[in-house]
Structures are given as structure tokens and as C-alpha cells.
């Protein structure tokens, strides 16, 4: 099932994956080509995506910015296969998933894509642990290993002591950490985050970003983060700007900022499983 994972670099410590040039021979992790999406709900059709194209390399952390209504969420949903484009293709590691059979979509999403949203990410009637464990509940044949992995993910985001708390017993930042743990627990190749810090204060937002950045560096997962916050975008390897349904041709970015705080000790080998 780990369709893309095998080709994905293992733990990326040191030089090998710090430079994008090293990955030139491998197809990009995410490749969106000429995607159009028009909503026909109202009297006037709304053309939201007007030929979006972008590439995200393996292990890259990309920020997606742009004015409100420019189609960022729509694009993220298309990449996460929550939404289907009218035309254009979405490729994961060179494999076209645009026309993936509908019944295979949940499985694909489970294994390859983790998603984090701005708010109300967690199921209120499930504890932190149960929320992180949720993907295993719906995954085949993974439930046993899932217990440990869910704990591991909670430990990773520093929420293990709170595993038995319900979301309403956690602060917004803590809830978002749990949501991050849930997005990562199945070791997806790509993590898509839609304004993950949008409802958090500056300090908490920084903490969550530290966490995402550490995870990106330690695990080599690919991150696409939609944000309006420049301090968030500054953490990314690259910033893509959207405007009016298109990705604006990019200018080269300055090297990304290092985490503000000292990196938390991550549990070793947490990503070793294929």
C-alpha cells in the first residue's frame, strides 16, 4: 500500500536532502498541472482555479499564500483529493491520481495525505488519544500497531500526558498539536495544512510551526502550508503565491528561517516504518 513511501527518502539527516538539486532525478512529490475548477452552485459559475500548476519536491516545506478567495483552500482540497478538478492533473510521485477510482480515494488519503485545518479539527467526543488513533480505526489491518504509533505521535507533539483529555479540555494550541499528531500518525508522504495557525496567538503559532518544521526536517515528509501569516511563510523552503486562481511565477526565496526555539528531542526512528 505504501505506494509512494518506498521511493521517499528515509530519515533525512544531513546533506543529502538539504538541497533540492539532489532530487532532480526523482519526480516531484506533488505535481499539479493546469488544474481548473469552477463552481456551478450559484446563478453565475464561479471560476476558482484557472489553470494552476505547481511542483513540490520530496521533503520540501512549501507555503501557499495569496489573497482571500484566490483559491488556496480549493487547491489544497484538490491536491488532497477531497475535490475533483474539472480539468488538469494531480500527480503524486509521478503517479496520476486525478482519476483514482472513488473507492480507492479514502485509502489513498489515509496512507499518503495527512490534513490539518484551521479549526474544529478534532472530534469533540473523542479523547486526544482516540483522535490521533482515529485514522487507524478506519484503516485495515493496522489497528494493533496503531496504539503504539498513536502514542508515539502524541509524544512527538508533546501531548502524551494529555492523551485522555477531551478536546474541550485542551487549549487551541494543544488541540492543534493533537491535530498535527493525527495528520502524521499514518506517516503520510504529504501533509496539507490549511491555515494551521490561523486561530492561534503568535506564541502558540510559533510553537506549532516549530513542531511542523522539526517534523519536516526529521521525517522528510512533504508539507504544503496555506497561510496568511508571513512569519509562518518565512519558515518554509519556498513560498508560492496564488492570485485569481493561478500560482504566480515564483521568485527565489531567501533560505528558510531556523526554528525559533531549540528543536525538541524527537523520538528516534519514529519514521522508520515503511
Amino acid at each position, binding site marked *: 500500500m505504501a505506494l509512494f513511501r518506498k521511493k521517499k527518502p528515509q530519515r533525512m539527516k544531513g546533506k543529502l536532502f538539504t538541497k533540492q538539486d539532489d532530487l532532480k532525478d526523482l519526480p516531484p512529490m506533488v505535481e499539479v498541472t493546469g488544474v481548473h475548477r469552477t463552481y456551478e452552485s450559484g446563478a453565475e459559475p464561479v471560476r476558482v482555479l484557472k489553470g494552476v500548476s505547481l511542483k513540490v519536491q520530496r521533503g520540501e516545506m512549501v507555503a501557499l499564500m495569496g489573497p482571500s478567495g484566490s483559491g488556496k483552500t480549493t487547491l489544497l482540497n484538490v491536491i488532497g483529493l477531497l475535490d475533483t478538478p474539472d480539468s488538469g492533473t494531480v500527480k503524486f510521485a509521478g503517479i496520476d491520481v486525478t482519476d483514482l477510482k472513488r473507492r480507492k480515494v479514502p485509502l489513498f488519503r489515509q496512507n499518503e495525505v495527512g490534513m490539518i*485545518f484551521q479549526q474544529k479539527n478534532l472530534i469533540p467526543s473523542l479523547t486526544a488519544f482516540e483522535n490521533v488513533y482515529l485514522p487507524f*480505526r478506519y*484503516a485495515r489491518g493496522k489497528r494493533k500497531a496503531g496504539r503504539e504509533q498513536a502514542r508515539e505521535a502524541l509524544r512527538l507533539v508533546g501531548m502524551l500526558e494529555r492523551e485522555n483529555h477531551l478536546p474541550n479540555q485542551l487549549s487551541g494550541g494543544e488541540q492543534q498539536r493533537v491535530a498535527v499528531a493525527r495528520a502524521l500518525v499514518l506517516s503520510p508522504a504529504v501533509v496539507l495544512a490549511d491555515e494551521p495557525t490561523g486561530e492561534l496567538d503568535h506564541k502558540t503559532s510559533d510553537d506549532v510551526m516549530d513542531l511542523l518544521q522539526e517534523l519536516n526536517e526529521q521525517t522528510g515528509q512533504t508539507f504544503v502550508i496555506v497561510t496568511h501569516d508571513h512569519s509562518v511563510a518565512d519558515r518554509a523552503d519556498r513560498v508560492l503565491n496564488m492570485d485569481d486562481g493561478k500560482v504566480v511565477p515564483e521568485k527565489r526565496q531567501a533560505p528558510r528561517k531556523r526554528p525559533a526555539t531549540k528543536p525538541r528531542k524527537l523520538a528516534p526512528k519514529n519514521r522508520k516504518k515503511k
Partner: protein
Amino acid sequence: MRTNHTPLGTITLVREALRNIWRRKARSALTIFGIGIGIFALTTMGALSQSLSKSIQVGIDYFSSRILVTKDSGGFGGPFAVGPQLPSSITDRIEVIDGVDRAYPTLSLLAEPDAEFSVASSPETIQGAPPAEAAKDKFQLEVGEGRALKAGDTGKTVIGSNVVQKKQLDVGDTVTLRGKQFEVVGILKRTTADPDSFYMVTLTDALALSRDITSFTTSTEELVTNINVFPEEGVDSTKLTEKIESTISGVDGTPPDQLKKTLEDASAVFNLIVLGSALIAVLVGSLSVINTMIMSVTERRKEIGVKRVVGARARHILKETVTETGLIGLIGGVLGFLGSAALTAVVNAITKQQGLELFLLTPELAVMSIGFAVVLGVLAGLYPAWRATRIKPVKVLREE
């Protein structure tokens, strides 16, 4: 690709459903109350009809082996008549009819002459039968304590359990029946039917009591209530009944089939009315489950969207929703059942003193009502669950 699916962790599934029920306490309580009322009605009515069915079954067993010959009364009284009305000499005339194996007369008398018939309980009756003949019957009332009557007994009686309770009698005690003293030699096992109010005596004793009452008449004939006719093996009892009626004038015969049918029809109609009304109560309760769950699904559509995003399939959402309504049904069912159990126990304890157990709450009935509540909960959950599966994550995740 494997086709078997890992089941959801049942414990987590149930725990989540319970938390969801708990999340909306007032609303859940009302819904559970609605189901509970329905199951309460269903269980109580079920207990009533069970107790009735059991009494009727005793009647069916008793009558189904014999043709009961009574005085032709133009349709009134029939097999349930009491009092002296038929010359016992008819017995001999019946016995010689082709196809009759044997026949014996019985005499029923009201223990208290001015006892009133009531729907709720049968009056106490004195039942006189010849012990030697009655002993040959296939259907026998079981004696719990003491002994059965035997040929040659005089001044002895075997009594039903209601009589025991009402009169505080025991084996060896003496009881006065219509001015004469009788010794209690046996007590019948409880049947929940007419025999619980019996004083069984020998036919000879019963005739003597009857003669005392009717002493003002000049008739020298021994009058009995009915004659029990047992057909020979292989003889059609309906045809034999017709033959008896045509041979002997002034009598009415009730063949077992007809009697059985009459009793069963009565019981079926009663059950239909009683259970039907209770069923309506339960259905109304389940409508409130549908309503509640539609509200809950609408409220939780965002959660459901998130679940779909992390890999839940339609069947998972379906299962989770239906688990919740099934649990509502279960809780409502258990509470309704417990309420009914309490009520029927109290009522039974009160009416027992009058020799009547109005309700019979069997384990089968318990399993059936609670099971029914769960099934209904699950069924009521199907529509909201189906709606839940239609929720599109892209849509709901946009909502604030």
C-alpha cells in the same frame, strides 16, 4: 487487496456513542424517555397478554381432549355454564352412541351462590367429578401438595391456589362449603387459570350439595352441569358432536376444535389490540429517535467531514450513527423494561391477595422488548445515518 475489513474497535465505538449521547443530555434524556415509555407500554401489555395466553392455554389443554355436552341453551352459557341443568342419566345414553369411548358427568356450583362474575377473576366454584373416571383423562390438573381425590372419598376436597391464599387454607384444614364441612386433602399447582379457584369434590358430594340447594324442587332427577365425552381413537369429534346432538334432544355439544378456536381467537384479538396499541407507542418513540439523530448529524457534519478526511468510509459513518441510536434504544428499552417490571410486580403483589396474577413477565418477554428497542433504535438510525454518509467533506469543512 484484502476484502475483509478490520472492525472498528467496539469499545471505542460504544464509548464515543455514549459520549455523544451525554453531550446533549436533555435532548438524549427526552429521546430515551420516549423510547422508554413505548417499551414500558409494550412490556406491560405483553405481560398482560402472556398471563392471559397462559390461562387460555390451560383451558385449551383441558378442553381439547373432550366434547363437552351441555344443556341446549340457545347459545348462552355453553361450555362455561355452571349449576345443575342436565339430567345425569343422559350419560348412559351418550355412552352407547357409536364412536364414544367413555363419558362422565361433572357438576359445577358457585361456591358462594351470590358471587358475581367479574372480568378480572373467575369466581370460586365447586367442581364435582367422579374421581375414578376423571383419573383416566389425558389432561390432569397437577396436585402440588397432598393428594388427588379418589373414588370413595366423602367430605374431601382438593383446592386451587387462589383459594389457598384467600382462605388461608392448608392440607388437613377444614372448610365449609354451602353449609357442609370438607377436609382439604390436596392443593393444586398454580395454573393461572380457572382451576386456581376450584374446590374439587367427588360428584357424589357435589350432587348432595346441589340437592340441598334445590330441595324445594320436586325433581328426583340428578342434575349435572355437563357431560364430558371422549371419542374413540380415530373418530372425528366434530361429526361425533353432531351425532350426539341429533340423537339426544335438548343438548348442545362443543367439539374440542371449535372450543380451541374460540379460545384462541379471543386471545388473538386481545393480543392484537393490546400489543398494537403498545406498538404505536414504541413507533412514536422511534420517531423521536429519528428526529434527534437528524439534528445530531446536522450538528456534527463538520466532525463527520473530518472523519471522512482521515479515511472513514460511508460504512464507518453509518455504523457509528447506528450504534448511537441502537444505544439510545438499548438504554430506553432497559429503563422501560425495568419500569414495567416494577409496576407489574407491585400490581401482582396487590392482586395476588385476590387470587389473581394479572401480569406474567417472562424472560422471553424481557429479551424481546429490550431486543425490540435496540432493533428499533438501529432502524430509526438508518435514515439519519444515510444522511450522514452523504456529507461531503469539501462542503462542510468550509463552514464556520
